[in-house]
């Protein structure tokens, strides 16, 4: 039976993975993902998760390879990783998506080396954005866990057949305790039918997977993956709505908005920073500042139409990126500018690089960003891209 309990994010995510009945789990330990796979190990050891093979690999590369093979053989799979581990999986991630295998991966978002840094930002997943995986970002423990269940339903939909990466901020979700509602197995079984793919590796019906595509087929094969991503937009919305109906929790589809009615200033971000932003927006709204939030839940597929609609009345948009495409700008900032360029309404846009490598973001920080937006609206010069709270004092002289 479903019940509410204070739970570490990792545990909630492991519980969600369990009720989806994965047949093969494969992972390699990496901070801050470890609690998830430890919990699943314990569930198997206790006999709470049965008919499940847990393959403890010697690297994330192999973990990804194992789930690819297992999924190709017709099994539902689960894995979790973060940071360097995700980078080590990188090559397999592309292969899984290209082969249209709907694996589900919990990504405990963390910064990448060098310098080594074990804390949270979004660089690991952002750098895999072109892999063909659907990328969903969760705001809190409940949403992260709920998204695991939705991820299987989205990925396995015949219109989609793509792997799904559920992104959850490392530590800020994985290691944070808060009340979470757990799942009733029967309800999950009703929501998520068993995995039954059109093609699988089976001697009774042999097929060849991973064939070589020569130039006359490659473009079309890539287009099909892209097309599946585009079709996933409606599936993500549908699944979110269906989940909401079934479990009584709806957190938005491709995007979610908060106090966007009459908001001249829109803040756009992904992940757990949204919670802190909501508190800041409440305070600012009370003080009469017309500010609201657009939360991107699905980064891939990128919800161009939904974002255009949500931002159609904003005069200025501040994008908070917890990543940096070095030599470029924040990835979400770039994508959103691209999405709005040919839109009927193109607001002014400011990009902020914030919260890299675990740097804490507070309500005050959000208010400061809104002040910059107000200054820009007031005609002041504000740089288009800011590394928020960059400590110039510690930079070498001359930079």
């Amino acid at each position, binding site marked *: 039976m479903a019940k509410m309990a204070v739970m570490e994010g990792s545990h909630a995510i492991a519980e969600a993975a369990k009720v989806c009945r994965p047949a093969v789990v494969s992972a390699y330990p990496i901070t801050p993902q470890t609690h998830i796979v430890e919990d699943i190990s314990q569930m198997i050891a206790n006999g709470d998760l049965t008919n499940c093979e847990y393959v403890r690999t010697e690297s994330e590369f192999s973990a990804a390879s*194992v789930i*690819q*093979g297992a999924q190709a053989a017709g099994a539902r*799979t689960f894995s979790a990783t973060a940071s360097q581990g995700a980078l080590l999986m990188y090559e397999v991630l592309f292969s899984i998506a290209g082969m249209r295998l709907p694996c589900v991966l919990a990504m405990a978002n963390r910064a990448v080396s060098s310098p080594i840094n074990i804390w949270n930002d979004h660089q690991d997943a952002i750098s895999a954005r072109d892999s063909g995986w659907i990328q969903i970002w969760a705001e809190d423990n409940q949403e992260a866990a709920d998204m695991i269940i939705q991820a299987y339903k989205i990925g396995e939909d015949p219109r989609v057949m793509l792997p799904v990466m559920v992104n959850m901020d490392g530590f800020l979700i994985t290691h944070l305790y808060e009340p979470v509602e757990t799942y009733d197995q029967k309800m999950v079984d009703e929501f998520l039918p068993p995995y039954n793919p059109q093609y699988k590796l089976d001697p009774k019906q042999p097929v060849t997977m991973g064939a070589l595509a020569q130039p006359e087929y490659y473009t079309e094969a890539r287009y099909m993956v892209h097309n599946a991503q585009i079709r996933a937009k409606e599936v993500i919305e549908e699944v979110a709505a269906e989940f909401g109906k079934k479990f009584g929790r709806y957190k938005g589809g491709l995007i979610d908005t908060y106090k966007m009615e009459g908001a001249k200033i829109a803040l756009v971000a992904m992940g757990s920073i949204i919670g802190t932003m909501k508190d800041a927006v409440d305070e600012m709204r009370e003080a009469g500042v017309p500010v609201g939030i657009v939360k991107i839940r699905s980064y891939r597929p990128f919800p161009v139409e939904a974002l255009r609609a949500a931002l159609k009345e904003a005069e200025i948009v501040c994008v908070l990126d917890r990543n940096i495409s070095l030599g470029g700008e924040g990835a979400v900032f770039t994508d959103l500018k691209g999405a709005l360029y040919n839109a009927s309404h193109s607001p002014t846009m400011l990009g902020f690089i914030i919260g890299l490598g675990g740097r804490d973001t507070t309500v005050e920080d959000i208010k400061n960003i809104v002040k910059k937006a107000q200054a820009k609206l007031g005609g002041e010069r504000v740089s288009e891209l800011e590394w928020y709270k960059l400590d110039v004092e510690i930079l070498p002289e001359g930079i």
Partner: protein
Amino acid sequence: MAALEDLFASGHRACAGCGCALFLKTLLRVTGPDVIITNATGCMEVVSTPYPESAWKVPWIHSLFENSGPVAAGIEAALKATGRKGNTKVIALGGDGGTIDIGFGNLSGVMERGHDILYICYDNEAYMNTGIQRSGSTPYDANTTTTPSGKISFGNQRPKKNAPAIMAAHGIPYVATTSIGYPADFTKKIRKALTIEGPKYIQVHATCTPGWGIDSALSIEILRLAVETGLYPLYEYENGQITSVKKIKDRKPVKEYLDKQKRFSHLFKMPGGDKEIEKIQHIADLNAKHFGLDIEPSKPAAAAPKKVE
């Protein structure tokens, strides 16, 4: 015209006389249809599956260059977890580059974790798919495009990596070397491996006609010479111990093997080449000693080998 029954079908695009294609055809004759194959990136992968064609009549998957082993492990886990294991065999294939070099770390993981799979490395002794570059399995003095012979080099200056011994050190139940030049030996070992539960490793010597620079008609003959000279000993490890060795009667001098291959032709032209051939002879002699290859201990003939027409 009678239908062709092979599970590795005709129409694949391997070179004329390809030893590796012969290996695949023969392999599936042994396994029959109840098998799932993973195949590392390499010649055999590209020549057998140019979409929409496939030479495979059994379930087959290619993912990447270095993950044939772990993908097979995933398949095995899936069959077990979903209750579909039955008698279905899971076989991972890789060339020597995919196996002994880039995939070696994760292959070690697969072997150590005890998956019930058979890994077969078809060893043609260089990266043939990309144009004959040196791998860890390239033999001493072989000319490859990344170990070319030149005024001051005789080619690859490192001996072939002893992958079977490393695999055996994992404590797995079965490791064997074989050669597609010896179909009976090959068939026997594949069949035996498939009766054993747990991880198995078989390394199959197979020719690459352009890579070795051989007359395609000699594709099988050359492989026999590799064995008959002691350069490619055929043996089995069971649970870490060598339990069988293919004995050789009247071991032939290595020259007979080398002089039919362009990859070694520099040894017959360059000053000092004879010394190098002696070194290769020494490798064969050490193999003979280590594995006890000779039926009657006899020194290799000193006379020049007969030329094959």
